[in-house]
């Protein structure tokens, strides 16, 4: 339990996906200009990230990594289980899983929760190319500092999404105010957003002391 709590704090604040790991910057810059848009994007990302963490962790544990159960079953007697398929297939598998997951979520939501679909709908297709989702999936599996259990991976995925949403919401608040100010022309829009993000990242550095 204490371990899970440490993961939650670490991924939400200390290693915030946007502000300290530089993941998911494109949606962060492009859809953080209005608070409701930022919230919608954040929720959609959190949703897909949690699902993707679950599926990719299962795939990694049972199919891709060395000594995976399925490899042992199918290719016993060869060297494949020993080496694993991770080095060759991981990137391609994960990105395809995420792309099809996004499609599935889209179809499922349109049929079952049309209200939520209408509010998130436009953001969903964009998530495939959001590097935060693939990034967190990789951090959960082969790039984890120490191997994570399925529950830990899902929790990490969910709270990475929450961290992303927090950063988006904070930024949208800043940008809604910036719009009313007289910013020099060359700095208007993206440049001033980056500088504001830098100041926000500076504040988030304070959390690093908690590690």
């Amino acid at each position, binding site marked *: 339990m204490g371990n899970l709590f440490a993961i939650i704090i670490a991924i939400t604040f200390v290693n915030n996906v946007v502000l300290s790991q530089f993941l998911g910057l494109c949606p962060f810059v492009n859809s953080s200009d209005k608070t409701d848009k930022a919230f919608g994007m954040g929720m959609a990302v959190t949703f897909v990230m949690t699902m993707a963490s679950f599926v990719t962790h299962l795939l990694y544990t049972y199919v891709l990594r060395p000594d995976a159960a399925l490899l042992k079953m199918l290719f016993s007697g060869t060297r494949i289980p020993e080496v694993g398929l991770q*080095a060759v297939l991981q990137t391609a598998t*994960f990105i395809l899983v995420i792309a099809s997951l996004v499609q599935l979520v889209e179809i499922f939501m349109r049929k079952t929760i049309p209200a939520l679909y209408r509010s998130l709908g436009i953001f969903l297709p964009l998530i495939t190319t959001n590097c935060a989702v693939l990034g967190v999936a*990789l951090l959960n599996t082969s*790039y984890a500092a120490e191997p994570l259990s399925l529950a830990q991976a899902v929790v990490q995925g969910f709270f990475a999404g929450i961290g992303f949403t927090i950063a988006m919401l904070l930024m949208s608040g800043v940008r809604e105010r910036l719009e009313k100010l007289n910013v020099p022309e060359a700095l208007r829009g993206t440049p001033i957003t980056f500088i504001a993000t830098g100041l926000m*990242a500076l504040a988030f550095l304070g959390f690093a002391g908690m590690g």
Partner: protein
Amino acid sequence: MRSGVFGDYRACRRRTPEAAKEVSMRQELTKGFFKRNPVFVLMVGLCPTLATTTSLNNALAMGVAATAVLVCSNVFVSLVRNFIPKGVRIPCYIVIIASFVTIVEMLMKYFLPLQVSEKLSIFIPLIVVNCIILYRAEDFASKNGVVRSLLDGIGMGGGFTVALLLIAVIRETTGNGTIFGLKFSTTYEPAAVMTLAPGAFIVMGLLLALFRWRSLRKLRAATRPAASTPAEATA
């Protein structure tokens, strides 16, 4: 909401890619470096740009890796562009890109010094979702011949690498007091924050502003003679 010079600037940025057919081979190669620089003008592929520019070595490694993937995927996509059904082209491109990324990832693991490949770690597989590569596959390689796609890949990849090096040289000198790992001054006290996340965002914001300031100035110079009233001309 946005108007005036800034609006015009956006409009003329949108118009440029359509001229692709008339540009010469030479322009195909050089456009990525300045006029349509992927980082500062198109603003794609921001995540690796900020994450890997803590030092010039890392930036160079990242730039070369991305360029290699971009050139290979551009050539391959333009070779098979007539065989891919329209409806499934994006998944096809993603699989092609993912294969080249895997190859580059394995090569880098064997040939790069450990501290560089460790620093880049997650950002090499993340080249898959780097918008530049999919964007060039969809926007250019799927519509142009092999030679043009090759040149485009080299140019865009080169522009990306140059942008990374530009950011990295600022961050490494100010944040670490070194150039390519060599100390250049004994008296300079490095400001470590520049190699951390905040420094990356601030340097990127200032460089973007610089690029935009240049385009705005050029645009103003170009529109001034055409202004009809003297009031507008002096504005």
